[in-house]
């Protein structure tokens, strides 16, 4: 019996000849952020560990509560800086030299196709979009992986999704993923990997692919993965520069023809509406046309899901020479400083400023109700982020609608949830 791409990568990281149900595998890169890594450091110290196995395979990417929203947030960053100095951890990144971890880690070449990656952040599943086996874990997992270089895994089964048909105008990877989560539910892929395939995926941009794998966790998935192809390697050459080196072993990064899947689900995208996930679950998905009456007080464009350059280009295309509706707070969060600078170079930041948006520094900020865009009781937001749970962006009595950058930008202009084609 053949193996799926995820099983292949896991197997390559163990000493076992055959793949068992549970493996204790070598990890190529492990990381945490300014909220999960301090807890890992605490677990590390409490355990009495006094060495890290591989200082160059550990990363601390500070992105959640930055720029430090208060003294505690500042102290957590300091704690990570001090720990990094003590254990010679090279990949410590404070705010102005990184960005949101799942955007930055790819740009910095810290994750690569075929690598086994764990991160103390649930959206670590993003890197499956470039062909890594990447899994979100907890802080104790990170502490132990820092010390031993290893992590335990249950080898997952895989659901294969095959996307076919003709992509309608404005439809994005985000819409495909929201439709998928709507179809299978928030636990539809529980404990399993989600493999996205088919002719539609092959034509999809890398930024769109990453938006899909990013949200695998929202269907309960252990990983989201797309077999790498020419486009993947071309993309990595551009964003990683000399840090990306193609090697022969990457040619084996595909699921075998006789690999076993728990299920194969076909999705026809022809005529698919733009998708919006309504409060309070990412699976509560409705076509954008049915939500015209929903008024919004805030529009958030960015995050580890949709803060990449093509996302900002789409938003800028819609916002150009138009003004944001009075009273709608429109906040753009580029995913990283590289993207921020690229957006500046392309004139996108100017478009945003002229249309009445504000451009924030790259941070997780409002996505998790941390800072820089918190909702009050009774307020609604349209957001290109990934979760709309109760209280996710602030008050437990606020409402978050998840959409693509195109819908979030169009809605910022009208103050209601809006399809971009409806704009005059």
């Amino acid at each position, binding site marked *: 019996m053949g193996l799926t791409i995820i099983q292949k990568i896991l197997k390559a990281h163990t000493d076992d000849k055959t793949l068992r*149900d*549970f493996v*204790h595998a070598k990890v190529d890169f492990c990381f945490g952020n300014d*909220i*999960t890594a*301090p*807890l890992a450091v*605490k*677990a590390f110290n*409490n*355990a009495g560990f006094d060495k890290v*196995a591989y200082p160059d395979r550990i990363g601390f990417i500070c992105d*959640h*509560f930055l720029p430090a929203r*208060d003294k*505690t*947030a500042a102290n*957590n960053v300091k704690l990570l800086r001090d720990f990094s100095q003590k254990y010679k951890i090279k990949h410590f990144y404070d705010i102005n030299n990184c960005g949101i971890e799942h955007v930055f880690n790819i740009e910095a070449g810290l994750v690569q196709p075929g690598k086994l990656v764990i*991160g*103390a*952040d*649930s959206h*670590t599943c993003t890197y499956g979009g470039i062909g890594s086996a990447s899994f*979100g*874990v*907890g*802080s*104790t*997992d990170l*502490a*132990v992986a820092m*010390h*031993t*270089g*290893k992590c*335990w895994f249950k080898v997952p089964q895989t659901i294969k999704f095959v996307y076919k048909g003709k992509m309608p105008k404005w439809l994005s990877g985000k819409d495909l993923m929201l439709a998928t989560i709507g179809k299978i539910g*928030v*636990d539809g892929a*529980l*404990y399993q990997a989600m493999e996205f395939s088919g002719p539609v995926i092959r034509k999809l941009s890398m930024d769109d692919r990453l938006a899909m794998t990013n949200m695998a*966790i929202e269907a*309960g998935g*252990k990983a989201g993965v797309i077999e790498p192809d020419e486009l993947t390697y071309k993309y990595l050459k551009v964003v990683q520069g000399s840090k990306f080196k193609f090697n022969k072993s990457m040619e084996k990064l595909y699921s075998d023809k006789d690999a076993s899947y728990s299920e194969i689900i076909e999705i026809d995208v022809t005529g698919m509406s733009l998708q919006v996930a309504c409060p309070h*679950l990412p699976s509560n998905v409705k076509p954008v046309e049915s939500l015209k009456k929903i008024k919004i007080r805030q529009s958030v464009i960015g995050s580890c899901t949709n803060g990449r350059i093509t996302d900002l280009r789409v938003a800028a295309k819609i916002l150009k020479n138009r003004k944001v509706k009075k009273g709608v707070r429109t906040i753009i969060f580029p995913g990283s400083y590289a993207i921020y600078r690229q957006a500046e170079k392309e004139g996108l930041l100017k478009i945003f400023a002229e249309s009445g948006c504000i451009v924030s520094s790259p941070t997780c900020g409002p996505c*998790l*109700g*941390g800072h820089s865009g918190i909702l009050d009781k009774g307020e609604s937001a349209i957001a290109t982020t990934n*979760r709309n*749970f*109760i*209280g*996710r962006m602030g008050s*437990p009595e606020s409402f978050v609608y998840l959409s693509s950058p195109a819908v979030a930008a169009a809605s910022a202009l009208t103050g209601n949830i809006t399809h971009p084609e409806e704009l005059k």
Partner: protein
Amino acid sequence: MIIKGHAHRFGNDINTDDIIAATYLDSQDPKFLGSKCMENIDKDFINRVKPGDIIVAGKNFGCGSSREHAPVSIKGCGISLVIAESFARIFFRNAINIGLPIIELKDAFKIKEKDLLEVDLSRGIIEDVSTNDKFSTQIFPEFLQEIITYGGLVSWVKGQGVTK
């Protein structure tokens, strides 16, 4: 190990933002995190919960973020065990890793709020003392049992002598 406590009922898809809101994640203190447990969905929960009590929930408990603060918060407010129809995977591994007992029970929906439960963890037997119902559940695979027996991942790693 026998656990005895009253049930606190929760529904399906209880996510980690429900368990502990993100704004509190800059703390690593179990007592503080415990005092904010379930704040977004049930403000009164921490006033009702007594040491040793048990959370009983539906499907996909702990979905959402990877924050280990969630099981830490549950432990911190005095909960001794979480029974759910199913668990989201990162919450599942976090609970095992930090030594918060969890049980997967398809019939969890039969247990009602305030029922007194007596649970034999090693045999996977749950007795609802209030209704005289008895449930048995599959115990975890050997690999996980081992980590559970050690009381969590750190002790397991130390016990195994796993270094490189």
